[in-house]
């Protein structure tokens, strides 16, 4: 083997090790969370975690049901707000706006992604929460407040990825449609969006991932009551905020129950991602 060959091999191995270090971090995190969280779940039984309504971790009552429901409500609410606005924004910027406007607006929207979540939370507390309290009643710290703020937070993800996928649709599709006499809106609705569908779904998945994982802003504006919300104006606690809120103080089984919360969050995210991936694959074929 020549020296050059050996160098080549060395570099390859070095790069391989670095690449694997990222994967191994993921593996370590997974192993750690499951290692810390599953023993207590087996000790008390899964049912006690998933279906119980009472979260009193210092009294051996580990009902995560309100938090599971809370995470789903808040995430669905965020999507209900973020997806229509995001998609409309992307369609406008690719199909209806001038080049110059797009060149200004797109970076500005992407800038939204760079704002730290604590700032969103702060704005939520100072502006949105009092507004909801005075207009609709209730404590203001609510599902609605969290859904609106998260809806705004996922906009840049949805808009920029949707724009990329709309732009990736071959020019001939659009030109063909217009040549057949379709209006711009008909072209958008019946040709462009269906053609870009897998990218748009991917943007929604990523947005959903951000919404379900967001913690800081949610703690500040959701009220964190460990009960199933009865209306949009009730406070709610998500799985992530349950962990962050109590981690600092927890010890013993309480701490293990918080890791169990992490396990459940992990599983939920895996399920959602798998469903989303399957649907987008099905649509593609």
């Amino acid at each position, binding site marked *: *083997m020549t020296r050059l060959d050996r160098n080549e*091999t060395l570099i*390859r*191995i*070095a790069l*391989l*090790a670095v690449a*694997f*270090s990222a994967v191994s971090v993921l593996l370590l995190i997974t192993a750690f969370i499951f290692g810390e969280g599953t023993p207590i779940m087996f000790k008390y039984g899964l049912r006690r975690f998933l279906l119980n*309504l*009472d*979260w*009193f*971790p*210092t009294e051996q009552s580990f009902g995560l049901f*309100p938090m599971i429901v809370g995470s789903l409500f808040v995430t669905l609410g965020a999507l209900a707000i973020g997806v229509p606005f995001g998609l409309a924004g992307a369609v406008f910027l690719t199909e209806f706006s001038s080049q110059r406007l797009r060149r200004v607006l797109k970076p500005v929207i992407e800038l939204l992604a760079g704002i730290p979540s604590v700032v969103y939370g702060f704005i939520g*507390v100072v502006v949105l*929460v*009092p507004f909801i*309290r005075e207009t609709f*009643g*209730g*404590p*203001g*710290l609510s599902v609605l407040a969290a859904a609106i703020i998260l809806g705004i937070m996922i906009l840049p993800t949805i808009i920029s990825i949707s724009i990329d996928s709309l732009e990736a649709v071959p020019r001939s599709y659009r030109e063909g449609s217009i040549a057949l006499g379709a209006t711009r809106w008909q072209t958008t609705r019946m040709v462009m969006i269906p053609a870009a569908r897998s990218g748009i779904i991917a943007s929604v998945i990523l947005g959903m991932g951000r919404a379900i994982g967001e913690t800081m802003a949610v*703690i*500040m504006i959701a*009220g*964190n*009551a*460990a*009960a199933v919300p009865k209306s949009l104006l*009730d*406070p709610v*606690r998500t799985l992530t905020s349950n962990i962050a*809120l*109590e981690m*600092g*103080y*927890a*010890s013993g089984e*309480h701490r293990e129950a918080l890791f169990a919360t992490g396990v459940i969050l992990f599983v939920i995210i895996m399920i959602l991602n798998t469903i989303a991936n399957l649907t987008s694959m099905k649509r593609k074929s």
Partner: protein
Amino acid sequence: MRNEKLLASKWVPGAFLALFFLFFPVGCSRNPSQRGLVVAGSTSIQPFADHWAEIYMREHPGRIVNVQGGGSSAGIQAAREGAADIGMSSRELRDEEKELFEVVVAWDGLAVIVHPENPVSDLSLDLVRNIFAGNIRSWKSLGGGEREIHVVTREEGSGTRSAFQEMVMKKERIFKGAIVQDSNGTVREIVANDPSSIGYISYGLVNESVKALRLDGVEPSYDHIIEKTYQLVRPFLFVTRGEPKPEAIDFINFVLSRKAQEMVRHDGLIPAFRE
């Protein structure tokens, strides 16, 4: 080609090991004298402990006192395991924790607070318990107008919450629909902005943005806490595993000195020797 692959499979574990040893030793080896005296625990005591440590270190150059938060339970745990030299607890020790050595460094009142515009300013402890248990859901029967009560509490594990649980709630549970916040400051912030809310915070942190309720007719005030007529008083404890070590004793003595206790009083707490 095949040869190359074989080589790689030999090398990969070695590369991993090398990486491992490269990163492993960092952060594991610091000797105890360098890390100073570690004081950890209750976030309610932390600001005061920071203040004590600052003055103490100024007066004793070369000594290092390292104050950390984490919460009462974590502080007690750290003291038990020896991770901290002194643990701080803002609740009484539970029976299974009684083996620890404890010193009261100050007393703190718990104030039940409402919005300044709330016409209610006096409640019995019984009513407070029923409000936090979720049995009373409207201000109407309490003379506070036709509004739903928004209960604000602290998170599970907080020393302030356990003190409130022990002194007010007794066997009752705080109801699940209560808003949960993770600091005295955010509880005060919410109560200051929401006219229908009620919460509890450390007496030392009450300011003009909220109204502290009289309980059974007794106003939470410095004098009433000293006289023990105001009921909701909890100790701020320093705990150690067994006899504290000399540096810890020195710091505890400083905290109990007239000067440091004067600071306690100035910061809105009640000195350790309240008699």
